[in-house]
């Protein structure tokens, strides 16, 4: 496989267990943008501890799908239940889900007017109501984890793209989420920075975090994911465990997509 970011390290799988508790349950979910049918009859169950990679051509609705999970986008029919809370227009439920679900964006979306440390403590202080000192300790803990504690007092503009994305991951982790969503976290990065972000994500997976990643990093998918979901035209076309998915794709659309992305 000619993947430039093939994962060459040993993965520690001791904590990567899929439990039989349901984390996210999506049933018959549909979404329209005006008259355009973006998501069609999505059914999906995510267990705690699962690491799912969602891939598909651009415009296939994969970003929209995970943005529905923390209600950045509203769905029009069907049901999304996150950790036992159903997403409706009830603000309390939305708040609850959002504080349980962390999200990492393609363009990092760090707050440029706040220092790295302040970026990480903002939500814990104002949403979780944690004392400032405690929040800062947590923040430093996670910044050490993503290996940039020394940048804590700088501003986002002074960091490289890879560093910014790692800060964004740390910022989400500071809320102690049970589920992490990744929306193409590496596609705005220069090639040499992709690896550092993927390494951080792998470490997260090794700790047993439930993860949904929209990404085209197939090396990451093979090394870490326990399931790969392929989407096209707003629907789930194929899903399988990684080895089967890459070596023995069933649908013609999947085959076409894989041949394009892997450059065969």
């Amino acid at each position, binding site marked *: 496989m000619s993947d430039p970011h093939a994962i060459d390290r040993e993965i520690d799988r001791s904590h990567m267990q899929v439990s039989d508790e349901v984390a996210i349950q999506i049933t018959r979910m549909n979404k329209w943008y005006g008259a355009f049918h973006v998501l069609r009859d999505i059914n999906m169950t995510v267990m705690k501890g699962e690491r799912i990679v969602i891939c598909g051509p651009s415009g296939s609705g994969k970003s929209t799908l995970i943005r529905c999970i*923390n209600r*950045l986008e509203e769905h029009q029919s069907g049901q999304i239940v996150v950790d036992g809370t159903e997403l409706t227009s009830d*603000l309390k439920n939305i*708040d609850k889900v*959002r*504080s349980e*679900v*962390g*999200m990492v*964006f393609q*363009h990092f*979306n*760090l*707050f*440029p*007017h706040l220092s790295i440390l302040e970026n990480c403590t*903002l*939500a814990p*202080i*104002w*949403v*979780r*109501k*944690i*004392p*400032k*000192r*405690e929040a800062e300790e947590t923040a430093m803990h996670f910044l050490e984890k993503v290996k940039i504690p020394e940048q804590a007092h700088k*501003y986002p*503009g*002074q960091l490289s793209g890879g560093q910014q994305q790692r800060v*964004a991951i740390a*910022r*989400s982790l500071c*809320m102690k989420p049970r589920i992490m969503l990744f929306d193409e976290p590496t596609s705005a990065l220069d090639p040499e920075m992709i690896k550092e972000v993927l390494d951080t994500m792998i470490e997260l997976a090794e700790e047993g975090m439930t993860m949904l990643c929209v990404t085209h990093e197939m090396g990451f998918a093979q090394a870490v994911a326990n399931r790969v979901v392929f989407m096209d035209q707003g629907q789930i076309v194929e899903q399988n465990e990684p080895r089967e998915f890459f070596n023995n794709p069933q649908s013609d659309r999947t085959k076409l997509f894989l041949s394009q992305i892997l450059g065969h």
Partner: protein
Amino acid sequence: MATASDAPKAGFRPSMLIYDTRYRSITIQVFVLILFVLGLVWLLDNTAKNLAAVDKDFNFGFLWTRAGYDINQRLVEYTNDSTHGRALLIGILNTLLVAVLGCILATVVGVLAGILRLSRNWLISRMMTVYVEIFRNIPVLLWILLIFVILTETTPSPRDFRVTDEMIAAGEAPKASPFFFDSIVITNRSAVIPEPLFTRSLGNIDIGIFLISIDLLAFLAAIAAGVFANRALVRHAQRVQEATGIRPVTWWKSILLILGPPILTLYALGFYLGYGELAGFNFVGGIQVLHSFTALWLALSLYTGAFIAENVRAGILSVSKGQTEAASALGLRPGRTMRLVILPQALRVIIPPLISQYLNLTKNTSLAAAVSYMDIKGTLGGITMNQTGRELECMLLMMLIYLVLSLMISTVINIYNHAIRLKER
């Protein structure tokens, strides 16, 4: 020492003054300097000759002579026996009054219109667009004149307010009556609003140039004290939040702290309102607000407000959508997102052009000349100039005053820009 620079010097030729990059710029600058000095000398020489021809000199002594004219709006005491210099002071204060009140109203109008223009409410955002486009594309002079004409030509004359015994007997109402629980009277001469009076007034202090009401100072001090106390309260709340994570509820304490001291002060001073009364052919008492002032103030505020609305809109739009999304994804509610994430970023974009709009408004107060409002132009550049015949001195002094005002405001912009740059990097 400097051996390297010796070599080219040896081969110096006059043509290098034009063709050698090292000397060329010096040549050009010397040439420009000569032209500039010549031009200056020419202008000064002309001026001297012209002044001599009409038998005038150049001095500012007239500022200390008796003015001999009345000014109908004055913030500090002035009579026609005062000097021209004092008339100028009145003019400057009148200019500043319109400028400051105009900036306040323009900010309120502009911020509201700018935010509403971005609202999801289709009707309101369209209405604000219409407001902004209409006011930005029509000369501000039109609004000044229109408001002035409406105020002076469509309002009743003072005698229409008169209630005679026969009218009471006949059960007739007067032709016109005051607004707002009989507190505001608008006649074709001026608007009369209630004036604050004190039964236990503290009198005035003389600070050399003019008298200042101690009541006013006490009131301002009370406001300052309230704001200061509120700041301490907020800081305390901040500390409690940092220590325990829970922010104490402060809004009602804030209201009490900000409103309390001024109200108590007013009560202690025996505050009451003095209304305008019809006496003879006009109203006396109350505060007489000249229509020229109102027209200038409203028109400049609405006009500048339209520009500020555009700045506010652009500032808020400059914060990318991703910022809101990231804040939402972290669980922040819209209100907090606005206060903690959007506004701090938008303000950096909004404030510099906002201050330069203040600068424009201040310069536009010179349109007072169109409605005979007695600002710097009306006093120094108007009656004083006509009476003394000192056009040169008056105009130069006037420009200097405006220039100093502008430079002060642009200094503020520069300091602000510098400050945020330091904070960012």
